């Protein structure tokens, strides 16, 4: 008999349990394949689980719960996210913490609900009007299903912002053997509220911290939250210098406080770096292992923080003569976010729609 606590488990269950242990206390759900398993699990596990009548209401209820001091979560897929976009912008501007688990499926539109995809990467990177960054973390294996949700929740709290936790159908609806004994305990997120006697200004920051302290509505100080351009008190302004400085702060805040999470497996003398995220990272790991068995030096990069782009990423890319991006979408969306629409000659892409990318397809693109 081997050691461990082996079982069959799916990614949805790990993500949901991890979020609950981390301190997310309210789940607002609207069913959509392939995100519904998370909703089902959350309805049994979260301190509160609500059935919303649509995805706009979902995000609005989450915002209300966040304004009242809770840490809400939802799970959805592209059609639901599309309805949430304006409300995510609202929560971003109000600076309300929450996590949106986005389970990608094949598009466009309703596409194929039970086929996986990585087609929403450019969308989530451009979700906030004006180009402001939203933190986007991406799960690349079952270990990430456990490790990343608390990081996403902590970032939401630290930066007072909605956070997208990106995954896809093949990650959350596939069961696999897994040793539960390998899961470390999940520490609850650390959270502090404004506790001073002086009047509270919901958007006033100190010089060294770009995030204002948080205070829920309904308590001893007046709290003003607004989605419109506003000053430090939360009062609507047109484009006053104070208000615009406050809006610009949102970019600085997210860029400063989104942790750079990635896996870098480098080999000496390797000239090629294989880059993949989400379920394709698993194929990339296999591809790299197979190439190494053949005696080829090749390195692997799996970004967990997809957006905003951490500053060290480009420094890593610059070390390589060839970059092979494997992405399950039409053109290599993340490669384009990094390098633009005219990809430099050193960048190759392996793309697919409607089918997972195989390790062989990735290995074929690695120059020998």
């Amino acid at each position, binding site marked *: 008999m081997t050691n461990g606590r082996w079982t069959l488990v799916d990614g949805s269950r790990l993500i949901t349990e991890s979020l609950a242990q981390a301190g997310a206390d309210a789940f607002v759900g609207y069913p959509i394949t392939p995100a519904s398993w998370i909703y089902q699990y959350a309805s049994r*596990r979260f301190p509160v689980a609500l059935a919303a009548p649509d995805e706009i209401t979902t995000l609005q209820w989450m915002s209300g719960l966040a304004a009242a001091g809770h840490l809400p979560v939802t799970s959805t897929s592209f059609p639901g996210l599309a309805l949430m976009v304006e409300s995510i912008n609202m929560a971003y501007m109000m600076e309300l913490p929450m996590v949106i688990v986005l389970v990608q499926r094949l598009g466009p539109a309703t596409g194929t609900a039970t086929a996986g995809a990585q087609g929403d990467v450019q969308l989530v990177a451009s979700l906030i009007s004006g180009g402001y960054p939203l933190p986007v973390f991406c799960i690349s294996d079952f270990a990430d299903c456990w490790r990343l949700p608390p990081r996403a929740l902590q970032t939401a709290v630290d930066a007072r912002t909605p956070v997208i936790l990106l995954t896809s159908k093949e990650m959350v609806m596939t069961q696999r053997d897994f040793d539960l004994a390998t899961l470390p305990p999940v520490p609850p997120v650390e959270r502090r509220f404004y506790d001073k006697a002086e009047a509270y200004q919901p958007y006033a920051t100190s010089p060294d911290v770009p995030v204002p302290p948080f205070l829920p*509505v*309904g*308590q001893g*100080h007046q709290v003003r939250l607004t989605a419109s351009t506003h000053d430090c008190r939360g009062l609507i302004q047109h484009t006053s210098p104070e208000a615009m400085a406050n809006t610009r702060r949102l970019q600085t805040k997210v860029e400063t406080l989104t942790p750079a999470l990635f896996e870098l497996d480098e080999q000496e003398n390797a000239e090629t770096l294989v880059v993949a995220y989400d379920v394709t990272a698993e194929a990339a790991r296999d591809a790299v292992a197979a190439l190494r068995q053949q005696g080829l030096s090749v390195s692997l990069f799996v970004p967990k923080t997809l957006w905003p782009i951490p500053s060290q990423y480009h420094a890593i890319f610059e070390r390589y003569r060839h970059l092979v991006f494997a992405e399950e979408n039409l053109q290599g969306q993340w490669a384009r976010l990094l390098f633009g629409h005219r990809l430099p000659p050193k960048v190759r892409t392996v793309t697919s729609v409607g089918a997972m990318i195989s390790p062989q397809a990735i290995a074929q693109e690695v120059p020998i």
Partner: protein
Amino acid sequence: MSTVLLTDKLPYCPGCTHHHVTRQTAKALEKLGVSPLDVVLVTDIGCHGIADAVFATHTVHGLHGRSTAIAAGIAMALPAGKKVVVFIGDGGATIGLQHILEAARMNVPLTVVVHNNFLYGMTGGQPSGLTPPEFKTMVAPEGTHLPHHNLCELVHEAGAAFAARVVGLGDFSSTLADAFAQDGFALVEVLEMCTSYTPKFNPDFKLRQVAEAAGYAVGSWTNPPRPPFRLQFRGGKPSLLSQLKLVARQENVGLMRRLAIVLAGSAGEGVQYAAESLARAAVSGGLHATKKGSYPVTVGVGFSAAEILLSPHPIRYHGITEPDFLVITSEDGLHWAKPKLATMRSGRVFVDASLPQLESPVPVERRDFRTPFGAKNAALLALATVAQEEAFLPEALVATFDPRAKVATPKS
């Protein structure tokens, strides 16, 4: 001096009835003796939405039409004694009608104050769903000739604890106080006039006359008391992992290579259960396994298919390009599996004997899966048969899910 308003100077156009609604709201809250910090005012988009700055309460200013929904999120999470008040216009009530009805249905403890001046005042005077049929606006200079929603009736039908309609003239603070006093959903529709756009297109406008002609009845409507929708946060629920069935894992039983099995059958015939049983048996035999299902949106009818991957090594990529064994137990399964079958270059197909002869590029084995233990056990029997015949799992592990091992006498 008002305890609720920070100033007498309100930000609306001269003569706008919004002045009156704001003051009457403050008066009603003061009548009830509510502390401003026990009140959350949620404003929508529209001229009333610039009221935040004059209120000493908490204020939340969100999106057009969505104020009731964010207010519901707040109200359901706050303790009893807090008052959540929504200011919304007739335009916001139109685009956000679903949110209002939902909050009424759930009896979320909040009050929606609808500023119904029959038009969108902030954008030049367009008609809303609450505009009377003959009322003229910039984009409908002859009127819409469409009936308006009866908001009070709609929320009353949806279960609102309290609904009322008043003409926004004179003192209606008692009606507002009655609404605010509810521990449940309340709505007060205030009929108003926009001084900027109403006279321009309706020069002889008289608020009471127009309201009466449009059938906007003044009054209040209540439903029998029922509990408000307030959340109870219940922590300490059992871990989702504690509910998982653990597998006693032995050393590897001897499978030396990766094996891909695709099982295709019908909904209701235990396909997913059978696939999971095989995967579980393999894991207990020291192997690694993945299993995923595929089925149409109508989960109770049509095909049900599963992909199982077994390997002596940890599985990372779990896609199956070509199965080693394609196992088909029903006509639905056959229909689903045909394209996959056509592209197979290696491997073997196991098909139920009742199904038509197949054109296949690889060898086909015909077995009776459906009769011995009935259709419900066809998938289990099929996987057990394949595992046994192909000998990729030891007998003892196959027996853990083989219906032949569990039932002494097969069905006749």
